[in-house]
């Protein structure tokens, strides 16, 4: 039997993997993929919490409606984000974090 805890553990692992990737990786595209993974972790937790909160035999759908919004927002974010990363690649011929270290105090 899969319980709420199983889902939450998977979601926690996804979140930590994403965060570790953001901190440790040097390639901006991979960092961006890790960020999407963190969003998915949040979505998974939302859906799981929503499914296991049963009232009158029906799950509570409030949080699941939020998931539709986060998926849509993530798509918009990727569209804008990739455009900016492509523009960066065109000027610098690189998507390494080393390419964005000019702004310093």
């Amino acid at each position: 039997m899969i319980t709420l805890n199983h889902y939450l553990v998977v979601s926690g692992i996804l979140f930590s993997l994403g965060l570790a990737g953001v901190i440790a990786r040097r390639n901006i595209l991979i960092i961006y993929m890790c960020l999407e993974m963190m969003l998915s972790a949040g979505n998974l937790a939302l859906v799981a919490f929503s499914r296991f909160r049963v009232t009158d035999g029906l799950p509570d759908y409030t949080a699941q409606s939020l998931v539709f919004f986060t998926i849509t927002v993530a798509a918009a974010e990727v569209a804008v984000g990739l455009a900016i990363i492509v523009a960066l690649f065109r000027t610098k011929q690189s998507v390494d974090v080393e390419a964005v270290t000019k702004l310093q105090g």
Partner: protein
Amino acid sequence: MSVFTIEAFLAILGLVLLMIEAFAPDISRRTLAALSIGGTALALVLFFTVASHETSSLPAFVQPWMKLDSLAIFYKGLSLVITLLVLWLMHECAPYLSKYTVDGRLSELFSLPLIVCAGMMWMAAATDLVTVFVALELVTVSFYVLVAFARKSNLALEAGVKYLILGALSTGILVFGIAWIYGATGSLSFEGISAALAKPETSKVPALLGAAFLLAGLGFKVAAAPFQSWVPDVYQGAPIPVTTFLSVGSKAAGFVVLTRTVEALIGEHSIIGPEVKALLLVLGALTVLLGSLPAIFQQSVKRLLGYSSISHAGYLILALACGDSIRTGMTSGGIVAFYLATYLPMTVLAFLVLAVLRVNGQGEDIRDFRGLGKRSPLLALALTLALASLAGLPLTAGFMGKLFVFFSLVDHAYWGALVCATIGAAAGFYYYFRAIVAIYSTEGSSNEPLKLNIASKVGATVLAVVIVVLGVYPKPLQHTLTKPVEVAAKASAH
């Protein structure tokens, strides 16, 4: 007509302007600017006529997710004013900005702020984390484009990438936080969360986890620790009007959401109230120090204003952590709103002077200010007022806001945070006055007078007058903000 119609009008106008540029590329920049500035001005006028009616309410289909209390109306007005000022600033900067864009086109620069404004106005009224999330992302995603807008400039592009990565990180953290808050309380509305947290059977650890992630995610938007590191870089790299918009608009919208979130989290009998308060105090004190101390060593004025923006966010978070203050008779939400209202003229004025220098081919370093006293006495005086007000000199707008924060810290006897805030304020006097000294030094500067158009002169004068008036006579503003507080208190008591 309701306030919601005005917001929808702004968003649609933004889309229409974008379409006009796409299908009629020959349209002149002046026409686009006129349409967008005119549309926002119209929205502002309509807003004041609608909002003054007691009966103004929201259409039925948005009522479950939005409410129109006085705090919401105040922040909606603030969003409209800052958007109008930013659009005007964009128009002033257009000649130099168009050098950094492909084909010199600037259409998104005049349409995106309208969409951002609609998003900020929705954030001000949101009573539900779903609405907060969608409106917040509308603002954030539009800002990704605005920050990286001058993409022929390497610095702007770099600022855009940094803002994108950290913004997306904060979104991920925010969603994770919302998930755990929902898991602990079973609700996504602020009212429901507050009610569930008051029950002793609600489990504490998931609620605390969710609250910590939620506050961290929102902290990014208002430039608070631990996500403050993007601020100086992005402020330096982004075009000046966008920096202005970020530092006032984005911050104000973030703070109205933060005010409502904190109210829900530390409401009466909240099982996680003391922990959240302690977390906010630590974050606030840390933000003040991380903003004030590095600012001492900055040479670029844009970076300096970035660090100053961080430290101001710190004071506001400290105010939120305190809750109601008996000495001033204001709630934390009222103090934050007052502080942001005084923060608007001084920040816009400082960036306006930077923009004028930029249009005249000058840089953004403190040494570029040298001789400003001779080259344009009006701008020099205005900038002096703005910087003195940012430092919190008595009789300027910035003083009262800081005073309220200090009062409420004393009220609640948070001595540690008070010490940090005092250190921050003292450091502030040093770094703002270093810039003021540069304005009036004549060593190694050109004596050529600055070219100023009428609009900049009028704008600088009006903003400077507002700073002095708010500083000398803050009572009317304080009164308009004491009322929303009572309404909010009554609403939460029921």
